[in-house]
Every structure is written in structure tokens, then in C-alpha cells.
């Protein structure tokens, strides 16, 4: 026994020799990311993880400031816009250089945009919109040269749109509009951006040490960057940490300067200066299949959900405040309408909630009255609906809450809950034959994408809602309203109200992300728009 104890002491001593202390280096930032990167090719980005990962080495035409207003970046000034709002002329810096010292030319941005629509590249990117001939080029019906983007000179770029778009300057802040040197990319071929060596960028940092599937890599300062003097960090090290406990432990041990905090852990840090909450544009909705696809390819009204009163009963029978505070611990805000707060402002600078009014609320009496009427119209005492949700922790929590909330508030409505993998849920929704599904939408720059989800001809109109009125409004938003922002905002409001008045969708909550961030870190910008939450390019540690 004594020998055993001595052995343990010896082991402890050996392990003690291994322990190290972590030296602080002021010019190195240790940052986190929630998962592996799907792509480092700026023209293929379609998710927030890749959006964040490319943000530090990309050099888009514009960068959004803290107020989500576009500021010149690679471009020297805001674009010159033709009178009809369809032609954008942009002058880029003549001092911009790639990480190898080569100059950046306007044709490099043209090449980048062409890659987004080149069928041979196969980009899943859906944030580059509006450019003339894009759909025909993607379908291979027109050559790349016919895309509405061309270089007028080495420093001047011209983009032609199909219709005027008041949000297009903001969209030019997307990393898809970062230059890519054609000769370099063509030399790498299919291997372009599959590793740090196969990537040449012009942004504030250079990707280093990434060979494809790592969970740790870094960005080193680009000495050729046109604004290198204002870039503080020599290196930013990214670490994928998926386990929430480990991430928090690493943060508390000072090994990470920032981590995300899931809703379960937010209460632990409430009131601490490190906790930062950032509202997102991710809307979670209870989606309904109003017209169902049948085996013969025809559509028939859903036996229960085609009844407007039943839909309204569900709409007003859910306490979103309780969902956000009690179930999601403040990691969400109750939905104000179909369109989330923060995506855009009205012509007179009001938020969506201020301008449109809060259209979504809990009204138990109204809900029960609608239910009574709906059941009478259907001629039944009760209805049973299947609610399909993804099997993620958050979806299960929300699904379980909805099941109990609806069954308690609306006696006679029985909810069968099915937690399935995301791909299964999505396949059910795209099969247009379900009852209820926990879905959602994350917009990027233009609020139109939210009501557009329910436009008759749109593939992702899971409800299969058919409406000439809504189609007319969406068409106006995408076409003739382009140069009349006030009319556009009014139509947007009408589309929002139309969807709520008809209870086509039941908006639940707008997600809020929680983060712990080193209080010494300053100068970073957080975004609601686009794919990257953080702009760390000009961040620094307080002296």
C-alpha cells in the first residue's frame, strides 16, 4: 500500500514537471469558432462559419460600420449610381496589393463575381443577387463575359443590375466582392482555396497553417495591406471548440479571448462585463403546410391548417416572451413580425418594430375564440397536428415548449412532436406534405427575403401558400420600387402585415447570440448583416 501511495506521489511529481504557464502576448489574439470551415473560397461562402473565417483575409469593396452603413474599403468612395439605379461605377484603390506584393486590379473583382455564377465552380453562394444575366450565366446559357460586371480600367469597375436595388451598396460589403487574381486561381484549378498555400488574398491578414480540415489555424498580418498601419494584431489564432464546457474553461483560463455562450450557460454570466449579447437576423418560425402536395403532383388544402381560424389560434396562443426568457434564457427576443428588427430602417430612420408596430403577440382569449370558431367550421372537437423539429438541443427545447404551450392554451389541439435530423426535417418540408415544422430564415442585407419565403412560385415556400396579392407585392419590391425607397418600405410593411393577417407563418423569436469577450479587447465591430458577426480587423487590446 505504501508503494502504491509512493507511486501516486511520483506520478504527480512527473505530471507537475509538464505543467506550463501561459505567457501573455499582447499582439496575439486567441479567438474561437464553433465548427470546421466549409470553405475558404470567398466566392463559395454561404454560412456564418466560413463567413467569419474568410472575413480577416478578404478585402471586399466596402465594409459595414457599427451602424451597418457601408464604408469604402477596397473602393475609394461610395459607388456612383446611374439615374435609373441599375449601373454602379466603383473606383478601387490603386495602392491595394495582394499578400505577395502584386497590385489588385478591378478585373480581379470581376473574376471573383464571375466565379460565383460559373457553373464549373459550383458555388452555393446565395448572397450575390441582382446582377444582370446571373441566372442565364449560372444555367450555362450565356458565357461568363455576359454577366453584368466588367472592368472599365485597372481601377474602375462597373456593375449592372437587372433592377434598381436600394440595398445594393450594402451588399457590396459581402466578401464575395473581394478580388481574386485570375492567373493564380486558374493555376490552382480545382485546388484553389483548398489550403492556405492555394490562396492569395489582399485583406488585412493572411491565412496561415490551414490545410483543409484543421480545427486550429491562424491569420498573420499582411504587410502589403493598404491600411496595415491600423492593423494591431500580428496574429489571430482561431480554434474550433465544439464542447461548450471546454470553451468556457479555456476562456476562463485565459487561453481564449472570446467564446460563444449557449442559452443554457447565459444565466451563469448574466451581469458580468465579459458577457456580450448580439442580436442576429435568424428568425425561428412555426411553419405550416397550408396546401399539401399529393402523390399525383396536385395540391389540396391541408385538412386542418387551411382553416384560417385554426392558424390564428396557433398564432395568438403562444407566449413568446416566456419562450425567450424562461426556455431560451434570453438568447432570443420575441418576434415582432415576419421581418426581424435590425435588418433595415424605415426612410425616416425607424426600426422595423417602430415603423411596422409589433404585430406578433400572445392573446389567450383571442386564440381560444379563434380555436372555437375553427373547430366549429371543421365540425370536430379536436385536431391532431404533427410538429417536426430538428434534433438539436435548442430545437428540441423549443419544440417541447410549443407542444405543452399549445396543448395547455388550446384545449382540443393535440401536438405530436417528432425530433428528427435536420436533413429529414428539411426533406419533409420540401416534400410540401407536413403539418407543422420548426423552421426559420436568416436574411443577409435585404428584408425582402423574409416575405419572399411565402411567394407562390418560390421553391422554399414550404406552406405552398398561393396569393396573387403577395406575389404582386414581392414583384413591386424587386422591380419598380428600386428607385422609390418610401414606396418600397410601404410595400414591405404591407407584405409583413398580409402574412400576419392571414397567419401564413407563425413567427416565434429572433435569435440573440451570447459571447464572452475579453474586456480588454477594443475596436472590434459586431454585425447583424452579412455572414460575419465580428470584424476583428482593427481590433486591439487596451493599453
Amino acid at each position, binding site marked *: 500500500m505504501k508503494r502504491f501511495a509512493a507511486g501516486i506521489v511520483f506520478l504527480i511529481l512527473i505530471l507537475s514537471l509538464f505543467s506550463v504557464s501561459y505567457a501573455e502576448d499582447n499582439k496575439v489574439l486567441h479567438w474561437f469558432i464553433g465548427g470546421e470551415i466549409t470553405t475558404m473560397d470567398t466566392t463559395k461562402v454561404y454560412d456564418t462559419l466560413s463567413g467569419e473565417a474568410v472575413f480577416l483575409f478578404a478585402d471586399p469593396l466596402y465594409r459595414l460600420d457599427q451602424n451597418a452603413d457601408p464604408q469604402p474599403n477596397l473602393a475609394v468612395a461610395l459607388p456612383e449610381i446611374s439615374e435609373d439605379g441599375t449601373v454602379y461605377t466603383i473606383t478601387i484603390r490603386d495602392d491595394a496589393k495582394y499578400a505577395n506584393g502584386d497590385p489588385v486590379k478591378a478585373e480581379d473583382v470581376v473574376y471573383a463575381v464571375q466565379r460565383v455564377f460559373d457553373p464549373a465552380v459550383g458555388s452555393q453562394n446565395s448572397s450575390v443577387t441582382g446582377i444582370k444575366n446571373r441566372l442565364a450565366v449560372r444555367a450555362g446559357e450565356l458565357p461568363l463575359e455576359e454577366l453584368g460586371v466588367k472592368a472599365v480600367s485597372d481601377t474602375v469597375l462597373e456593375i449592372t443590375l437587372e433592377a434598381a436595388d436600394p440595398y445594393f451598396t450594402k451588399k457590396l460589403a459581402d466578401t464575395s466582392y473581394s478580388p481574386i487574381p485570375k492567373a493564380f486561381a486558374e493555376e490552382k484549378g480545382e485546388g484553389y482555396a483548398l489550403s492556405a498555400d492555394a490562396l492569395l488574398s489582399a485583406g488585412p491578414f493572411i491565412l496561415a497553417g490551414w490545410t483543409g480540415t484543421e*480545427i486550429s489555424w491562424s491569420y498573420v498580418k499582411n504587410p502589403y495591406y493598404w491600411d496595415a498601419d491600423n492593423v494591431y494584431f500580428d496574429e489571430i489564432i482561431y480554434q474550433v471548440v465544439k464542447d461548450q464546457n471546454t470553451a468556457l474553461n479555456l476562456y476562463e483560463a485565459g487561453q481564449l479571448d472570446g467564446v460563444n455562450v449557449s442559452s443554457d450557460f447565459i444565466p451563469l454570466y448574466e451581469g458580468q462585463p465579459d458577457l456580450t449579447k448580439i442580436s442576429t437576423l435568424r428568425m425561428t418560425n412555426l411553419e405550416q403546410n397550408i396546401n399539401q402536395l399529393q402523390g399525383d403532383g396536385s395540391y389540396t388544402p391541408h385538412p386542418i391548417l387551411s382553416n384560417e381560424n385554426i392558424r390564428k389560434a396557433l398564432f395568438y396562443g403562444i407566449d413568446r416572451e416566456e419562450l425567450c426568457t424562461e426556455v431560451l434564457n434570453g438568447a432570443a427576443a420575441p418576434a415582432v413580425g415576419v421581418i426581424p428588427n435590425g435588418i433595415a430602417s424605415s426612410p425616416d430612420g425607424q426600426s422595423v418594430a417602430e415603423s411596422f408596430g409589433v404585430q406578433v403577440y400572445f392573446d389567450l382569449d383571442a386564440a381560444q375564440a379563434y380555436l372555437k370558431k375553427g373547430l366549429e367550421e371543421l365540425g370536430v372537437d379536436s385536431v391532431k397536428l404533427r410538429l417536426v423539429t430538428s434534433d438539436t438541443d435548442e430545437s428540441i427545447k423549443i419544440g417541447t415548449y410549443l407542444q405543452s404551450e399549445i396543448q395547455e392554451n388550446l384545449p382540443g389541439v393535440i401536438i405530436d412532436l417528432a425530433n428528427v435530423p435536420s436533413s429529414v426535417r428539411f426533406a419533409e418540408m420540401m416534400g410540401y406534405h407536413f403539418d407543422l415544422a420548426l423552421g426559420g430564415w436568416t436574411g443577409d442585407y435585404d428584408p425582402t427575403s423574409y416575405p419572399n419565403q411565402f411567394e407562390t412560385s418560390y421553391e422554399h415556400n414550404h406552406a405552398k401558400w398561393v396569393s396573387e396579392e403577395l406575389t404582386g407585392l414581392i414583384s413591386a419590391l424587386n422591380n419598380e420600387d428600386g428607385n422609390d425607397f418610401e414606396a418600397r418600405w410601404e410595400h414591405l410593411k404591407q407584405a409583413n402585415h398580409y402574412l400576419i393577417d392571414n397567419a401564413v407563418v407563425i413567427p416565434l423569436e429572433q435569435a440573440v447570440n451570447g459571447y464572452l469577450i475579453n474586456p480588454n479587447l477594443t475596436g472590434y465591430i459586431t454585425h447583424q448583416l452579412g455572414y460575419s458577426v465580428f470584424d476583428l480587423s482593427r481590433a486591439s487590446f487596451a493599453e
Partner: protein
Amino acid sequence: MKRWSKYIGKRLFYMALTLLIIASATFFLMNVLPGTPYNNQDRLTAAQLEMLNKKYGFDQPLFQRYINYLKNILHGDFGISLQFSDQPVATLLSQRMGPSIQLGLQAVLFGTVVGVFLGVIAAMHQNKFLDVFCSLFAITGRSVPNFVVAVLLQLLFAITLNWLPIGLWNEGFRSTILPTLALSISPMAESCRFIRTEMVEVLSSDYIELARAKGMSEIRIAFSHGLRNALIPLITVLGPMTVSLMTGSLVVENIFAVPGIGEQFTKSILSNDYYTIMAVTILFSALLVAVIFLTDILYQIIDPRVRVEGAK
């Protein structure tokens, strides 16, 4: 010798056949999975979907794709991962297998050595305190999931005592210690239980009695004479266990932020990443059939009672 080569040839043929059946079944089953392999499927337009299917060859008839896939793997081309935007699956596997194999081997080695030692001690002190202690340890080790052990180890050695890293794969061998310990609990408990049972039987056999009569010490009897025979059955379980540990653990790798292969299989199935599903299945199966084959060969070499088919 001729019998051996015939036996090995036959086994290799069956191994190849097994792999072909597994690969074919997986190929057709995964195509029944709902959804598309594109991560951005919830916003792709029909035209985009068509363009992507054409680019990746998913617009071809299923059987044609099956034949193409078999041809490609015979040429060493395992396709690309759509989850990791067009990275070759071979790159994904080669980058992720290393840490998983290292942790798996370390865990098996450490777990088996300690487990065997504890098993022998337990058998030598049958029905006494040390036996009860070791048996309790074995039962606990088998019952407690390794992620619980992982969290406890992290809490004790990394957070409270600050001896070892909390996680991350950036401090060489030090980064491997806690995940290895967490993964080794299972082989440790399994070996302990196995060896104890075998040793109890072996230690009561005649030749051990003879050794005792000759005046040999109990420790020498146990480790020099008893253990050799008790170890043989352990080889049977050790092979599959090693493969299972080498192919990674989703939970332990996530807890210690290890860039292993553990999560990829589950993740590839959930995201319909066809080529990754296929490659990981084939790889895991190949490792398993190879280890089973080697175990059988080894078994026949070290245990004279087992003979290849046809031997007298």
C-alpha cells in the same frame, strides 16, 4: 506452408468480398437518406440545385454512379467532401486519422497494461479486498461513459490542479494525456475483468500447483507462468477494441478539442456527405476485417490448440 498460403488466400478473398458487400450496401442505403448533400440546401434555387447535381455527377442514374464510384476507389480516388467544400476525402481522412490513431493506440496500450496488472492482482487475492476493489473498478469502468470520465479528468487535472491542458491539440504529448486516460478506462476495465476470470482458472491448474510446490514466489508464478496462458483469450477482444478506439470518439474528441475522425462519420451521415460516408465506412470496415484476420493468425501462432482448417 502450402496450407497456410491457401488459408491466407481464402481469407483475403473473403475480406475483399466483405468489403465489397459493405461498400455496396452503404452506397445504396445512403442514397435513400432524405435531403441533399448540400449544406445550403434550405436556400438553393432549383436551378442552382440542378447546376450542382450536374457538377458533382448526382444527375446520373444511381447504378451508373455506383459503377463510377467503384472504378474510382480502385484508382484510389475516394471523391470529395461536400461538407468541406470540395476537399478530397483522402485529405480529410489523412489529416484526421492521425490524432485518433495515436489516442486509440495509447489508450489501448495504457488501458491493457494497467487492466492486466489489476486483473492479475485481483486473481491473486481472490475474494479479498484487492479483488473486490479491482472488480468494482472494472464494473464502474464498464458502466460509466467515457465522456463523464473525460469531464472529471478535465476538471481535476486541468482546471483544479492546472497540470495538464484543458483541451486543444497544441502541446504535443501533453495534449494527449487526458484524452488517452479517458479513452483507456474502457479497455482497462475490460482487460481487468477478462484477465481476472482467466487467471482465477489458470491459477488453480495443476502446473501452477507444481510451480508452487517447487517453491516459486506467487508473483513469479502469476506473471511468468499464469499470465502467459491467461492472455491468449484477451487477444480476441483486444483487436476489435483497438479498431474501435483508433477510429475515434466523437464525445472525447469534442471535449478535448482533438482534430480526430470521431465526429466525421456521424456528421457525414447527418449532412448526406456521400463520399465521406463511403470512405469512412470502407476505412473502418477494412481496419476491422484486417484486425480480425491478424487476430486469427496470431491466435493460431501462439495457441497450439488452434490449427488452420485442414490441419491435424
